[in-house]
């Protein structure tokens, strides 16, 4: 499904990522973990087209997507969420999700401005689909609230609803549990289960070990820009190198 091979990224003289490779299977849930500064978020930004890589390549479903911008990736079925939640703060919750349906609709500037019958019909379809995703994530009641006023937990759910509206094949979540209380984290774990149930491949960068061990099939461990280990949660928990990296000294 997703093949990352030999990704290297050098910022100035600092090697943030050094020859990182791994493969993620269709429909699986994979966690990318590692101590602070391991290069997890940089890796995510490269895969999702936000940063450019120095060398290496990324393939999605066999197609080379290296260096493609995020708007192209959305159309190929890849979407992501952000560590610090990137909502459209001035818009309503429903409108946020409606933006997620951008690639699933096609009315252009003129058709919209002239209120062509097909663009009105499309607008209704967008609204209904958006409501479905609000229901799916359990925030229907907030539809008309301003997104900027949401609590962090609800904002996270909205971000996921909006990402699902793109109808992705793969969703990458950057620290989805950051800032959530234990109750909310539990809900998140269930939601990830539901997403995987739809056949969507999930990749998460996460610090919350309990969540990672709970929901992931496979785990990739990064340390100082290099891949340290890869395996099932059990294998990772028993890996001496991983334990050493987390405890500080090897």
């Amino acid at each position: 499904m997703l093949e990352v091979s030999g990704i290297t990224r050098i910022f100035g003289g600092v090697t943030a990522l050094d020859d990182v490779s791994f493969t993620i299977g269709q429909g699986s849930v994979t966690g990318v973990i590692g101590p602070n500064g391991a290069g997890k978020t940089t890796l995510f930004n490269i895969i999702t087209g936000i940063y450019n890589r120095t060398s290496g390549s990324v393939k999605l479903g066999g197609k080379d997507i290296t260096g493609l911008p995020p708007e192209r990736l959305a159309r190929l079925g890849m979407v992501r969420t952000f560590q610090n939640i990137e909502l459209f703060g001035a818009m309503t919750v429903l409108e946020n999700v409606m933006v997620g349906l951008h690639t699933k609709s096609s009315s252009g500037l003129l058709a919209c401005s002239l209120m062509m019958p097909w663009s009105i019909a499309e607008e209704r379809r967008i609204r209904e689909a958006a409501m479905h995703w609000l229901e799916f994530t359990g925030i229907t009641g907030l539809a008309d609230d301003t997104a900027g006023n949401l609590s962090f937990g609800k904002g996270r759910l909205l971000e996921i609803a909006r990402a699902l509206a793109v109808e992705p094949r793969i969703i990458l979540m950057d620290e989805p549990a950051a800032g959530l209380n234990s109750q909310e984290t539990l809900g998140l774990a269930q939601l990830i289960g539901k997403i995987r149930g739809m056949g969507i491949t999930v990749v998460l960068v996460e610090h919350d070990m309990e969540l990672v061990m709970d929901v992931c099939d496979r785990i990739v461990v990064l340390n100082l820009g290099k891949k340290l280990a890869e395996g099932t949660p059990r294998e990772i928990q028993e890996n001496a190198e991983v334990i050493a990296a987390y405890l500080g000294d090897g």
Partner: protein
Amino acid sequence: MRRELLKFLFFAVLILAAPLVFSGGYLMNVLVFVGINTMLAVALNLLLGYAGQISLGHAGFFGIGAYLSGILTATYGWNAWLAMPLAALVVGTLAGLIGFPILKLKGHYLAMATLGLGIIIYIVFNETVDLTGGPSGLSGIPNLSIGSLVFDNDFKNYYLIWTFGLAVVLFCVNLAGSRVGRALRAVNDSEVAARVMGVNARILKVQVFALSAVISSLAGSLYAHTMTFVSPASFGFNFSVELLTMVVIGGLGSVYGSFLGAALLTLLPELLRGAQDYDIIIYGGLLMSMVMFMPGGLVRGLPELFRRVARRREGAGNA
């Protein structure tokens, strides 16, 4: 969507009925300009209020529309109804071509680039004397006409301008509430998230920049045919700033706010005429306090003010 339509109908009736109250005299002339400025402010608001991209060069697009219409009709004897869309097409293409590289810039840099663009256009108006008549202007531009109906007085021009004005308002209200309008606001709120959702921010910004320029050009053509005379002074940097002020005072991201801003800034200098040389101080003071106390613009600030006054009255009644 139905609510938006009702709002528009209410606005349209208000505009179309206004001459019954204010008919005749100098005021009609000012209201014609409110119409032209509304078109310009609404166009700039699409760019600034919705897409979050600044332009300090819009007076230039307005000017090119006016001059192209003026030159084609007065010098080359074209039909005005033919010159107008051609001017709009030329301006739209130009804006698209220029927009593509400069809309890569953000914030202050975009402001500087569009400022430069406006200044270059202004210099061209002044220097190409053979075409534009230079600083002394271009005269003898014919009025618009349909058959035997010639739009040669303020009353007729009011309805001419506002037919276009209302069409522009409806066009932009529709756009704002649509898929494309949402994508614009999304780019304004978080460009990176909008792109992750599949919005091609770059193309969208260029499209809106071009659309905004086309509407400005249309307003320019109408201005030329209404005034029958154009000179560079009307299309300088000052006017670009005035348009920006209309949009901000009226309310960013509100089409009707742009009308309020345009109306206020067009009427105010006329109302302050009695204050003689002090008018500029009153004008400046008003603008400053408005930005300080109504940061959301008139369209959000006025209802809030009414509510506060009503509450105070209620309070006084109880005491």
